[in-house]
């Protein structure tokens, strides 16, 4: 029996197709990307080794610094926008209210819609002429707040964070809800008998029990915020005047608009490091006893 399940040849037949594709088109490009970040190249005739020069240039590049700052703002904004709201929704639905399945299905819907379509939709909403938002402000008598939302460099990034929240809050809600539903209901029964209020139960039972998932959710929000591309590319293209430039759009610009591939891959490496770093950081912040999981 053991020989059947340990047969090297059949293991190879099962694993190798996936592994070879994965190695060539996922693992190898990452190594190659790091290698390329030390070169100045246009992928044609010219390719010069420049050492750390691309990274030094990045540190001096005001637009890159701006995009890095915007990414950090997006991370913070998304954490603030997603975590508490998703938790509020998850907790409300978890408490067996009427229509729970309906709310759950509707809230999750935006996260399966194409980012480009979402971006365009919200471009219409924010539009200065006939946009829904201005029409709404007009209807409730706040005409003085009407404006061309995405052209305002102080508001554009904030407007995008709102869209991100609209699109993904349901997704994070479902993650937290799944964690809440895994909690043994006897804890709540015992707490009710002892006279604990809903709030006390939330703080003393729900919150500690879903902490491991909150950690994962935080990682998802952070890495997700570092990776936004579609929405920004469609809604503002990084403008006005780089006010909404993020690393992904700047990387695309450097690589595929002005063909500075080496420089662009250096931005890719920075993104890779930030994603890896956020995993490590969240592990530190949300120190949990992993044996619970």
């Amino acid at each position, binding site marked *: 029996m053991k020989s059947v399940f340990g047969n090297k040849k059949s*293991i190879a037949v099962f694993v190798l197709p996936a592994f070879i594709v994965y190695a060539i088109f*996922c693992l190898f490009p990452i190594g190659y990307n790091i290698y390329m970040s030390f070169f100045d190249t246009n992928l044609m005739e010219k390719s010069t080794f420049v050492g750390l020069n691309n990274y030094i240039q990045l540190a001096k590049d005001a637009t890159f610094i701006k995009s890095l700052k915007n990414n950090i703002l997006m991370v913070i904004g998304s954490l603030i926008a997603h975590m508490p709201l998703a938790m*509020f929704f998850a907790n409300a639905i978890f408490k067996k*209210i009427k229509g729970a399945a309906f709310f759950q299905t509707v809230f999750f819907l935006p996260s399966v819609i194409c980012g480009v379509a979402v971006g*365009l939709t919200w471009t219409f909403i924010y539009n200065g002429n006939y*946009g829904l938002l201005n029409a709404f402000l007009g209807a409730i008598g706040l005409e003085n707040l009407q404006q061309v939302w995405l052209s305002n460099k102080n508001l554009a990034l904030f407007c995008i964070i709102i869209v991100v929240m609209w699109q993904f809050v349901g997704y994070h809600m479902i993650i937290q809800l799944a964690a809440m539903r895994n909690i043994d209901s006897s804890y709540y029964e015992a707490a009710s008998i002892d006279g604990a209020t809903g709030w006390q139960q939330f703080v003393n039972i729900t919150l500690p029990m879903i902490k491991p998932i909150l950690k994962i959710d935080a990682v998802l929000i952070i890495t997700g915020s570092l990776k936004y591309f579609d929405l920004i590319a469609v809604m503002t293209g990084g403008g006005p005047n780089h006010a909404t430039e993020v690393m*992904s759009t700047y990387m695309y610009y450097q690589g595929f608009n002005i063909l500075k591939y080496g420089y662009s891959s250096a931005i890719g490496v920075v993104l*890779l490091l930030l994603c890896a770093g956020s995993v490590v950081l969240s592990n530190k912040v949300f120190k949990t006893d992993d044996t619970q999981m």
Partner: protein
Amino acid sequence: MKKSPAEKVWLGIKYVTLIIFTIMCLYPILWLLLASFKTNKELYVNAWGLPETWNFSNYVTAVVDGKIFQYFGNSVIIAVCAVLVTVIFSTMASYAIARMEWKLSKLTYNIFLMGMMIPVYAMVIPLFSIFKSMGLLNNHLSVIIPHIAIGFPMAIFIICGFMGSVPRELEEASIIDGCNIYQCFGKIILPISKSSIVTVAVVQFINVWNDLLLPRIFLTDAEKMTLPVGLTNFQAMYSTNYVCEIAAVIITIIPSIVVYILLHRYIMEGMVAGAVKG
């Protein structure tokens, strides 16, 4: 059990918030649908209400002039190929990792999972260079192949998680009955794992269908573009013909919404399961 007044108020707040967010989720989509039947002029003066006449001319323009069906066809080809190969290869690999006995299975699993935290931006330029030297740029394969590779971590994670919980006796019984390992995989394990495989297929479909970055980088001819790229071209070409663009957006999101309505249970499970390993 009687509820105190404070609890009633709290329950009321919860309902109101949930309902407001429900409207926020659904209204933009409904608004788009209504706007897609309006004329540009009507959109300007009557942003909220029902269209005066239900005319389909915007859809006709989107399909005839905007060639939206061509983009649609490309999206279908790319999504179907990427989903099929990802599902087949990842199911096979998951079987070996979760059910067979070999020293490196844990390591192989971890190497695959590592891919979950890698941003695609850290590999597009090398991929561009590889496809360029292979002469695959502007070929659907250049979008399909990376999607397959990027899809494996999530797929293998979900399917392995499922297969790991299947009792050993079933397989052993089938081997004793004379099945070889491939028959055992095809006749016993595949049918049992169907739900996890459907989940992977649906999640992968949505990821590939919605992706903008890869087709935008690797495809150059308009005839080869997918829907998301087509939409951005629309935005540039018909920057004043809003209603036509809105019709194109509706055509793009309908497949995702239909798939979601039919299979939302699988999607929610899958997208959450894919997430729940840091």
